[in-house]
């Protein structure tokens, strides 16, 4: 569904709304994913939907209703439901006015028509290429290729009206040998950018390189985290930059803006317009997104806000609202870490003894305030000896403060986009001294 149609739906609702303030969020999604295992497609799915969410504010009382029925009567019904809910809600006089919006422009290359219209035959060809690599390497493959488009329109009765269309393509593969596995991924707004042969070859190489893994002792290690591993770790720091956790005291950075808390080589931004990860230039309240420097040379510089928390803390609204209703506060969802100067290979070459981690798994917070998290390595964990990769090791569990890790780190010069189901960011490979592993597993 094109932006013009979504905006027409929004205008229709706003034109009929008797609420003091009204916000309309129209989301369109058309996504497909071809998933495989053992060189067979076991799941091939396509989903299309449009949904409309209405936030009505009546006398300081807020209600939200959502429906995927976009018939005229149904739109009226969704509006009426939101108002009815609002009238029953307690009054919240701290609720600020909805943003008035502003001019925004989508980042370059956020939308690619070929990706929006990519069909099952194209994805089958791409997974077939990965099957060929698996068979040629005598390993088996599991993964997926996905493609699709999302469109979003946010409008409100204070004048905000913003639309964005983006595309996403992704290839993700794990290659498995008898006693080892390797992982690689590629993400882009353009399906044509997915070099699936190279992605598959990287995963297969890792599986073959790490066969017959040896056991190593847990303890403090020098580690080199490749982008997929580093991004998953960093995702657990992003909530510490939220104005909500900052104000309530659960953030490590609470009350510590301006302090040097990370290594002097650490600069982290939230940047919706990074060319490797172009995303929507406004938030779910229609506020234009600011490109925010969160950490500069180790000094914590800023947090992210939405309209509620900007008003409460008397800070600028940085445009990081999530969809209403939102009990989690504003979030920095597009982290970018400033790269270093050494290549990944140079980081390895300068490591007398350490571990290279391709990917983490199941990271969870152990102690939120102290940013201590635990998790496992998986799918390509190497020993480094005398500056060279020296075969695979059995996977290990870590318990590590993220902040502490970022006090003793060095970044590679290459940036990669990586993402999970709840984050998408652009990061380099990172070398960390004294990374704490606490146990090992059997594979």
């Amino acid at each position, binding site marked *: 569904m094109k932006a013009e149609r979504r905006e027409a739906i929004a205008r229709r609702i706003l034109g009929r709304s008797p609420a003091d303030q009204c916000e309309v969020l129209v989301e369109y999604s058309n*996504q497909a994913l*071809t*998933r*495989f295992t*053992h060189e*067979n*497609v*076991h*799941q*091939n*799915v*396509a*989903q*299309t*939907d449009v*949904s409309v*969410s209405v936030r009505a504010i009546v006398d300081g009382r*807020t*209600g*939200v*209703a*959502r*429906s995927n029925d976009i018939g005229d009567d149904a739109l009226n019904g969704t509006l009426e439901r939101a108002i009815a*809910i609002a009238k*029953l*809600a307690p009054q*919240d006089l*701290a609720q600020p006015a909805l943003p008035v919006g502003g001019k925004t422009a989508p980042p370059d290359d956020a939308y690619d028509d070929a990706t929006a219209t990519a069909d099952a*035959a194209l*994805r*089958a060809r791409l997974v077939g290429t990965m*099957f060929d690599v698996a068979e040629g390497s005598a390993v088996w493959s*599991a993964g997926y290729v*996905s493609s699709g488009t999302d469109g979003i329109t946010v409008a409100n009765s204070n004048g905000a009206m913003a639309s964005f269309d983006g595309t996403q393509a992704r290839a*993700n593969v794990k290659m498995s040998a008898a006693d080892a596995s390797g992982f690689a991924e590629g993400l882009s707004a353009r399906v044509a950018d997915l070099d699936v042969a190279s992605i598959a070859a990287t995963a297969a190489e890792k599986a073959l390189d790490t066969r017959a893994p040896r056991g190593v002792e847990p303890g403090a290690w020098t580690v080199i985290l490749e982008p997929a591993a580093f991004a998953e770790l960093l995702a657990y720091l992003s909530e510490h930059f939220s104005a909500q956790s900052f104000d*309530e*005291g*659960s953030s490590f950075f609470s009350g510590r803006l301006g302090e040097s808390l990370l290594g002097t080589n650490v600069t982290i931004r939230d940047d919706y317009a990074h060319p490797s990860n172009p995303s929507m230039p406004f938030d779910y309240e229609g506020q234009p997104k600011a490109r925010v420097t969160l950490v500069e040379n180790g000094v914590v510089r800023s947090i992210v806000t939405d309209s509620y928390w900007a008003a409460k803390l008397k800070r600028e609204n940085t445009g990081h609202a999530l969809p209403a*209703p*939102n*009990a989690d506060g504003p979030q920095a969802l597009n982290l970018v870490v400033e790269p270093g100067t050494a290549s990944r290979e140079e980081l390895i070459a300068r490591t007398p003894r350490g571990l290279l981690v391709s990917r983490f*798994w199941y*990271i*969870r917070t*152990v*102690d*939120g*305030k102290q940013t*201590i998290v*635990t998790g*496992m390595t*998986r799918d390509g964990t190497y020993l480094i000896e005398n500056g060279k990769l020296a075969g695979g090791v059995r*996977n290990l*569990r870590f318990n590590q403060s993220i902040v502490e890790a970022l006090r003793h780190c060095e970044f590679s010069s290459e940036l990669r986009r990586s993402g999970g189901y709840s984050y998408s960011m652009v990061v380099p490979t990172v070398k960390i001294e004294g990374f704490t592993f*606490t*146990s*090992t*597993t*059997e*594979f």
Partner: protein
Amino acid sequence: MQFEDLAGRALDDAVARGCDYLDIRFDIGRAERVEVRNGVVASLADAASTGYGIRALVDGAWGFSAASDLTDRGVDDAVARAIGLARASASVSRTPLAAAPTIAYVDSFATRVERDPRDVSLGERVALLLEAERALHVGSAIAVGRAWIDLWQADKYFYSTIGSKIEQRIVQSGGGITALAVGGGDVQERSFPGDRGLYLSGGWEVVSGARLAENAARIGEEAVALLAAPQCPSGTRDVILGGSQVSLQIHESCGHPAELDRVMGWEANFSGTSFLELAQLDRLRYGSNGVTIRIDNTLPGGMATCGYDDEGTKSCASDIIREGLLVGYEMSNDTARAIGRTSNACVRAQSWEHVPMIRMCNLNLLPGNVPFEGLFEDIKDGVYMESNRSWSIDDRRLNFQFGCQIGWEIKNGRRGRMLKNPTYAGMTPQFWNSCDAVGDADSWFAWGTPNCGKGEPMQTGRTTQAAAPARFRNVAVGVGYEG
């Protein structure tokens, strides 16, 4: 009826196009959430979503399309798309994986509901939460209080080319409270009931039965007390886990590894594989003799309780672990057929737009015969832990580390002082083999989990792991906080 007409059109079209099998599942989903945060209603929302998912089987391969366009043309397009996806799957797959279901049912099912949540006014819902949340604030150290209610209803209409016609109404409800205490550079959290709230299939009686307001002051006081409590020691101890934590232990270390799609590598790139390999079936001593873990999708109140799963298989009960021995898996039609068994109805889809896949359903540790107090009796030096705070396990489900919100020292058979940051770790089969006592039926409860993640695209499942408190010997505790 609109759905039946549209379904007939889809099934006829499938046959005409040479499709080997097709099913279409209409789903009218309704989700309502109310959340109060620090005295403010942070969420008062009502979401409705209607659509259909179509599975098409062609040449031993599946295609799945989902759409919300409830017109003839919309259904025609979705059928064509599903068949196109199936043909694309078949074109590149090396071997056929799939076969059509063979047993058709014409039936209906509805969750037993004592009080329809729709009969409870928004005002009553909000008032309950405001009262409970207010009671959490027992002092200035409580930085965040939260209280919430979730209400879900799904009306499903399933039709297939082998003649199934199944109508179901599934109603699930839940709620909980959480207090976050901040002080002295520390943050501590307490929740009730369990760590995620109380979630059951049923109506408003689930929410009112949770007794949130009655327990809120105690939960707030415990959160504050944890700030000053001593750290859980590190070392080897006997451990008693509260029922909700045993529930999570079952979920992570039995429920997920026993999913047969994981065992067969279908989830390898994301959720991982499993140490419960096929060669271990009927051989692996998973746990001690007192450990029997059973799928029961007919369990009253279970979040996964229904008449039929989302590929039209009738709900049933079957053992996964019987007196410590691995004897079964959670299965779909295709995976069961691959190992010469029949499905035990463990297939679910989050909504109409999600493909049905194997999900952990109601998977329960059967109660033992030890009263709760009796679990403590012969422990000289141990830790009792309640309510999960952190959970992590490797991608074959062996090496785990879990943390709880609160613990208590056990000395010479008696519960002693409160401990903060209790954690424990181990390897799954060794841990379950160290279980020497499971609480009795009086302490057994159907703990529900509303947010189990699996699959790509990611789906959220609602599941129950009924459990009683249980005792484990010689467990590593205080992990992650050594030194």
